[in-house]
């Protein structure tokens, strides 16, 4: 039992250390390229990744958020109606999505959709010696492969989180109008008055941080693939599971810290 605890703790610490190493070395390779008077990463690759990560994820993020917002408003609305406080639905949805569910939901969607793709792609490249070939040419593989992906997902997560919030508000607004008789003008006004700038900033910051975590985990799992096609499959599954668990774990820790700090 103790041996197993020690074994898993050691393995976890090694993985965390390796992810930190990956992050620092990616930055180091980018800085080295800037010093040589070049772009820190391949611009074409960055735009391709932002297109895939951002534009490509919009429909799924919108769909999931729209229906989750709608369902939340419907369920909470019916309960609040019993106490005659259904007018609180817009406030509830606005705050919970802006601070919490928007970044979290986007994180989960991106971990599954983009994190898995990053791991599978880099894993296949690793197995077919493409990563080694890039390194053998004298090109830093981290700045070439990891940097565009990491930057794309880190920068696009906040944007997608905004999309998620808007979609959820539209969904919940529609259902509130139909089932709770809350007219759109009232709904819109209630959302605006209930939200503080700090809520929006916290949400965006969280989304950005989640993006960085998902990108790092996905790239790390991809570059550490061993054992052919089976290894790629196993690493892709691990990547999604670890990224989602880490995002939820960090979110909980963050909430506990913020709640404690703000009383």
């Amino acid at each position, binding site marked *: 039992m103790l041996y197993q605890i020690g074994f898993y703790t050691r393995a976890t610490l090694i993985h965390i250390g390796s992810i930190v190493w990956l992050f620092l070395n990616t930055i180091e390779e980018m800085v080295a390229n800037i010093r040589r008077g070049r772009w820190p990463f391949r611009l074409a690759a960055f735009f391709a990744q932002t297109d895939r990560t951002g534009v490509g994820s919009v429909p799924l993020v919108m769909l999931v958020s729209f229906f989750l917002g709608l369902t939340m408003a419907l369920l909470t609305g019916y309960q609040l109606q019993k106490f005659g406080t259904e007018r609180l639905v817009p406030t509830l949805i606005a705050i919970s999505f802006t601070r919490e569910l928007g970044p979290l939901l986007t994180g989960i969607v991106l971990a599954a959709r983009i994190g898995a793709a990053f791991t599978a792609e880099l894993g296949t490249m690793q197995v077919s010696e493409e990563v080694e070939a890039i390194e053998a040419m004298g*090109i830093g593989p981290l700045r070439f492969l990891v940097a565009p992906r990491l930057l794309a997902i880190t920068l696009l997560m906040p944007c997608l989180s905004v999309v998620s919030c808007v979609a959820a508000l539209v969904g919940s607004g529609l259902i509130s109008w139909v089932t709770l008789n809350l007219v759109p003008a009232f709904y819109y006004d209630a959302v605006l008055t209930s939200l503080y700038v700090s809520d929006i900033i916290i949400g965006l910051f969280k989304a950005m941080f989640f993006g960085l975590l998902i990108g790092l985990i996905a790239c790390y799992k991809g570059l550490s693939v061993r054992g052919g096609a089976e290894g790629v499959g196993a690493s892709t599954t691990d990547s999604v599971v670890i990224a989602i668990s880490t995002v939820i774990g960090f979110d909980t820790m963050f909430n506990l810290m913020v709640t404690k700090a703000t009383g």
Partner: protein
Amino acid sequence: MNTATPLVQLIDIVLKFGDDVVLDGVNLAVHPRDRLVIMGQSGGGKSTMLRLILGLLKPSRGEVRYKHLRVNRLSRGKLNLLRTRMGMVYQYSALISSLTVRENLALPVEELGRKSRKELDRMIEEKLDIVGMSGTEDKLPSELSGGMRKRVSLARALMMEPELILFDEPSAGLDPVISSVIDELIINLTEQTDATSIIVTHEMESAFRIATRMAMLFQGKIIQEGTPEAFRTSRNPVVRQFVTGEVEGPITEATIHHHADHTE
């Protein structure tokens, strides 16, 4: 005997992966314009030697030298700079599968050199012409056969005009005709460009066709080094068995003992 300063030197190299000793005191010198063929059993550490020269692996003991540079002690930046003077052709080509032939060839120059678009296009055209692959610029690696991919991989290795070209099993998986074409290409290229090459293979016909010098790796050590002629007439029982491909001999015995040790 070549008295010129070696381009590459492996000095008393020991490489271990855990308890497995892959290379056990390897000493080897490669001189300018050599076409050195390293032979040995599959999984015997031949390709590992190429990775040591490129600085992709660090030896557990010993030193890898490129001219006066100590490869295993270079910083990452200097190592990357040194790698631009070498080209590597991988066993399975290792072309970037998501990039076209043109993009694959342009990659090292775009990332490391400073050439205009026009100059780069001219270089790509020239290198593809050398390997007989003109007209494939817009194809993806998946649209090419194994032999074609290997030729494109060679063209990519030539893009930075390297002093040293490393070939990992250039004939593996190819039919005899294409294999001969690749061999001829290696010979012509090294003669035209004055490049030095190290070729790892276990295919004897190909080895004797290409080599100006040969080395045999067995049980982590270089057991013989010399001209192809010396290898043909070698009295070393290991070399003789490897060259003739006989079933009975010291290699078979060593392999059986090795398997027995691992299954005990």
